[in-house]
């Protein structure tokens, strides 16, 4: 961490102005089909940030030099921490409700396997992707999952490329997508909103923030309870998610890939001959 670059005042001033503008625009509700899309200030802040990013438009180099932008990565990790603390403070007061929902909270971790039922077959059968599929679809591709793939296959392997692709897409759009999806599903009224709140917990810090924030806006009356549930679920993801993805999800992805992929089937047949 290079302090001189990280304390660049233009960077922080830009962030403050972008945030003020985003907060001032506020929450927009867009009716779409049977549900409603919620646009949150954090979307606009992200979009303003990307538009001012010197790597996208080199003219922005005058406001924020590329070197500052390159060094700013660690700031995201640090800036999310006060939010995590705020998040935790919704769990403490609601501890009794959370304990009452304990079994649901713990078992929904297994719901992470849902990614394989949907994404893996599509990637293999429709997009005809190779072993990238395993890295891309065995988990939600956050840092702990990358560590697992890096350990088992290396990041330059096809599996590594797959997970890094999803990681980058997640970094760029994951937060926005989670919030849109959560707000929309809540407005459709199919699921118990508390279940959606728990499902928000699967992602990275900012995904969880956007997702549960969108739910809280969709159901303002249940605000505190919803935040507490997604916070608790996220904490459990950190505690158990690594093991679920290492011991259950990854072997399951390998298994399913071998049964679906034409090339893997071919190889298996050749081995038998």
């Amino acid at each position, binding site marked *: 961490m290079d302090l001189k670059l990280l304390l660049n005042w233009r960077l922080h001033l830009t962030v403050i102005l972008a945030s003020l503008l985003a907060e001032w625009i506020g929450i927009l509700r867009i009716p779409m089909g049977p549900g409603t899309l919620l646009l949150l200030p954090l979307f606009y802040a992200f979009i303003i940030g990307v538009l001012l990013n010197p790597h996208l438009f080199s003219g922005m180099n005058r406001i924020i030099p590329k070197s500052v932008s390159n060094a700013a990565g660690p700031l995201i990790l640090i800036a999310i921490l006060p939010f995590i603390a705020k998040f935790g403070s919704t769990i403490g007061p609601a501890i009794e409700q959370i304990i009452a929902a304990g079994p649901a909270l713990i078992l929904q971790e297994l*719901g992470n396997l849902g990614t394989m039922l949907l994404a893996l077959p599509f990637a293999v059968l429709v997009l005809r992707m190779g072993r990238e599929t395993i890295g891309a679809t065995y988990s939600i591709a956050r840092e702990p999952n990358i560590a697992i793939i890096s350990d088992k296959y290396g990041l330059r392997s096809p599996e590594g490329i797959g997970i890094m692709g999803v990681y980058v897409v997640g970094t760029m759009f994951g937060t926005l997508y989670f919030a849109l999806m959560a707000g929309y599903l809540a407005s459709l009224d199919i699921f118990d909103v508390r279940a959606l709140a728990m499902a928000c917990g699967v992602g990275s810090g900012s995904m969880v923030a956007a997702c549960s924030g969108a739910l809280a806006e969709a159901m303002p009356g249940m605000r505190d309870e919803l935040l507490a549930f997604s916070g608790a679920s996220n904490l459990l993801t950190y505690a158990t998610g690594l093991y679920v993805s290492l011991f259950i999800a990854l072997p399951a992805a390998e298994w399913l890939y071998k049964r679906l992929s034409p090339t893997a089937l071919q190889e298996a047949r050749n081995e038998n001959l």
Partner: protein
Amino acid sequence: MKTSDTVTIDNEQLQELRPENQLGKTALLLAVVCVAAWIANIVNGAPLLQALPGMIVLYAMVMLGLGIGRVAPFYLPSVAWVSLVSILMTLPFFPGNGWIVEQLTHVNFLAVVTPVLAYAGLALTGREFTMFRQTGWKLVIVSLLVFTGTFVGSAVVAHLML
């Protein structure tokens, strides 16, 4: 296939990024990002003075969590430690929990995240933009399916259990 160095996040880098390993620098940077959140909070949260104790409480919780993460005998991500500290301090039997929760109500939940996303947008590197162009549309579709599958999968299980 062209993989290039763009894809690599090696372990050393991840180690270096962990905020609990550089507490001094983190304390300073945390103060800066807290100021950004504090100002962003004006619009939909509370005026500066009213939100000040809450922001200081958040700052203290984070530093405490990072400190514990530094000395803990086993590894948990710093977010988990910070979260645990904050849960503990707001539990009904924790001394002064009423005051803490009261102060934190002046800090708007979403306003704290808005600057994070502004930082995220500004910190995307050339590497990420390039990678995005290289990996292309297939991985975008797969990623969205991954997010949908995980989210809906968890929601279904939780819905059935509740």
